[in-house]
């Protein structure tokens, strides 16, 4: 009965064999070293948190395990056997499943059809639905197999994704930032579920940058920093402070990598509160009264929102995905016409949308044309290209955009430099109001600090600033006042984590 590769039953097994082990993993993207001799060992029956800052290589490492990418060097063992995971379907065959941060569901299809996707042979809707019900019941997840995915809320879509993986009998489930899109209540439920699922003998890898999530639920923790594994430990043995140090790097390294001014900004940010408004705010610049508005699909997202923003303050909006913040920001920035209510906004507004690739830049156009894009609707007659080139050069210098010149395409800039260009464009000419949506999303440490500094400088220069961030910690760091948004309504809350968190869920502010 002993098949090749299975350890002989008579030999002593001091430790349970790791389910997955990755050693010395290196992976490059062009000139960038994304993973540098990284390692990860996942034991069966555990929740394993993989922590790290944006760009630390967490997702890349697990994408390698899921066969979406191949390592340049290093060894992957699955149940002790050296293994090459050639593709996601190969991974699924072996028992490795992954739920991505951006869901991979077909909206036009039902849950059952989505779960069955990628299999072979005949498809029987009734049997497929029964199977989904069965898998969901055993796993303790509520899903309706006949529901069309396009009609599901985010939480239900995520459960559908998990059921999709579980239906393939995976033994190792990788969840990439699963709580990022969830309301705190839903996130807590999901984390509790991963615990129960691991206790039943499976393994879960939780990719996250939230220390609280990691320590709350994980057995083991691996911390990645700049592509290297810097810490692997039992969760019991560490504190949040330990993990934070490991993620950000020791004092020495911080000093080594950060420029003096940037270090000052970081330190100022760390000592929360210091960076907040020092002088009294000015008159109301930006206001909404009783505003109602719909999204592109006609769903009412704002149900009577009232907000006043004064010159010289940063107002933070806290909300879970889909609470109406997108519409609120666009109404304030005059990108969306409200159905009813009164909006008063100045003529000059800087608007920094979350998705710069889709909403802020024409990637194939040169930088100076991208600068000229701002409010081009109001322009008449000829374009003064020489002037725009000059303005672009000024932005490049003032915002430290790393580029060989103003004539290259926006596509060839890195994400951080693209965002600096957008900021420079939108803050040019000292607009009276600035509306920013997740302005540091996808940016590294330094670029984030630069974005924060720019927004603070605009505030100190007398602008009324509204910021939404999906990262509550960023908001607490940046905002002078915080409003929580829940289901299309808005209320001011105290500036502490717990109160805001409750208010986002619709609890008392």
């Amino acid at each position: 009965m002993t098949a090749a590769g299975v350890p002989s039953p008579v030999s002593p097994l001091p430790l349970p064999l790791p389910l997955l082990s990755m050693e010395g993993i290196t992976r490059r993207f062009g000139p960038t070293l994304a993973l540098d001799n990284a390692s990860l060992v996942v034991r069966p029956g555990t929740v394993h948190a993989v922590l790290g800052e944006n760009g630390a290589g967490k997702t890349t490492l697990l994408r390698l395990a899921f066969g979406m990418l191949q390592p340049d060097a290093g060894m992957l063992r699955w149940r002790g056997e050296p293994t090459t995971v050639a593709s996601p379907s190969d991974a699924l065959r072996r028992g490795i499943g992954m739920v991505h941060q951006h869901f991979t569901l077909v909206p036009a299809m039902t849950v059952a059809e989505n779960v069955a996707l990628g299999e072979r042979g005949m498809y029987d809707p009734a049997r497929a639905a029964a199977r989904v019900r069965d898998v969901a019941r055993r796993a303790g997840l509520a899903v309706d197999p006949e529901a069309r995915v396009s009609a599901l809320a985010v939480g239900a879509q995520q459960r559908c994704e998990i059921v999709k993986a579980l239906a393939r009998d995976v033994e190792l489930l990788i969840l990439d930032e699963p709580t990022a899109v969830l309301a705190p209540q839903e996130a807590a439920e999901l984390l509790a579920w991963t615990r129960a699922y691991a206790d039943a003998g499976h393994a879960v890898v939780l990719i996250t940058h939230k220390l609280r999530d990691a320590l709350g639920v994980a057995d083991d923790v691996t911390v990645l920093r700049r592509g290297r594994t810097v810490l692997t430990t039992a969760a019991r043995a560490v504190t949040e402070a330990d993990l934070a140090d490991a993620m950000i790097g020791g004092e020495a390294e911080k000093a080594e990598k950060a420029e003096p001014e940037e270090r000052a900004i970081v330190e100022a940010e760390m000592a929360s509160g210091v960076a907040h408004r020092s002088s009294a705010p000015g008159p109301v610049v930006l206001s909404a009264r009783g505003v109602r508005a719909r999204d592109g699909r006609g769903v009412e997202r704002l149900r009577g929102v009232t907000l006043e923003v004064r010159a010289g303050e940063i107002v933070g909006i806290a909300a879970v995905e889909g609470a109406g913040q997108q519409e609120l920001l666009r109404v304030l920035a005059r990108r969306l016409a409200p159905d009813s209510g009164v909006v008063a906004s100045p003529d000059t507004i800087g608007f920094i949308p979350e998705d710069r690739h889709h909403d802020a830049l024409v990637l194939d156009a040169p930088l100076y044309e991208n600068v000229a894009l701002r409010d081009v609707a109001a322009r008449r007659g000829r374009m003064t290209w020489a002037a725009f080139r000059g303005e672009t050069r000024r932005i490049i210098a003032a915002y430290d955009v790393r580029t060989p010149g103003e004539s290259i395409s926006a596509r060839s800039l890195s994400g951080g430099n693209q965002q600096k260009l957008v900021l420079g464009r939108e803050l040019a000419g000292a607009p009276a109001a600035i509306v920013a949506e997740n302005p540091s999303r996808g940016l590294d440490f330094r670029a984030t600090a630069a974005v924060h500094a720019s927004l603070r400088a605009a505030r100190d220069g007398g602008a009324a600033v509204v910021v939404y961030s999906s990262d509550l910690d960023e908001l607490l760091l940046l905002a002078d006042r915080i409003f929580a948004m829940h289901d299309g309504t808005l209320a001011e809350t105290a500036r502490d984590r717990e109160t805001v968190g409750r208010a986002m869920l619709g609890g008392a502010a």
Partner: protein
Amino acid sequence: MSDALTLGTDLLEASVRFATPLALASLGECVSERAGVINIGLEGAIICGALGATVAAGAVGVGLGFAAGALAGVAIAAVFALFTVWMRADQIITGTAITLLAAGLTGTLYRSTFGASGVALSTPTIGATAVPGISALPLLGASFFNQPVITYLVYVLAPLVTWWMFRTHAGLGLRAIGERPEAAIAAGVSPRLTQTLAVLFAGAMAGLAGATLVLAQAGTFVEGMSSGRGFIAIAIVVLGRWHPMGVLGASLLFGAAQSLDTVFQSMGWREVPYQLFLAIPYLMTLVVLALASARARAPAALGQKELAEK
């Protein structure tokens, strides 16, 4: 009374006859579009199929003529697949080029091989095969079941494609590629393989349509004899709401519009502006497009060039 019945039978018989090549090409286009590939080079595949069928039928017989037609369609569709699926070139531009290419190639080969235009080449044809029993039924039986064998292939293929599309995992994968390629890729469906096979299938079906024009109808090859049927197929797929059975119905409607011309002429009604009847299905297609509910919309990733290969 019997005059009316005869007229009705003739009209229906002609509608089915005209609808047959349209339905063949449209079923292929339906599968291709469900996989996210709109092929306006279908016109080229039809004319290639027609020439392939002409050459092979003269040399080795009618049956192999159909096979050769399908093969010729596959060959030109392979070029389309190479550009659109493997190089991710724009589908509309490539389709336009393929139509031009096929028109040029078939014209050049035909004239070079069989002499200048005017020398009509006559091929054997298949006649109608009455289905015993059913064809004796008045009106529907006499029109739908007194047709060449290739028409019966359409009757079989439409439900078969429907079944495949909605009751097999491969069909599920195909629809997923057309709706949300990222999701299909994540589930292990290969977009390249799926789309290539879909495009080649559409090519084979368009080739069969071309073979039908020659071997079941005209009995000869004429340059440009596809006369826009590849584009009509795109209209039919829209009117049929991207469903094989809907495509069958829409083909019949377009076939009926085309048959009116013939019927009017046979009745001696020369003053009837038949062009207006020909225009009706296109108008209907536009109206359907405009009023289609979300469910009857085109596949979400139709014509999408890049697959988000992140």
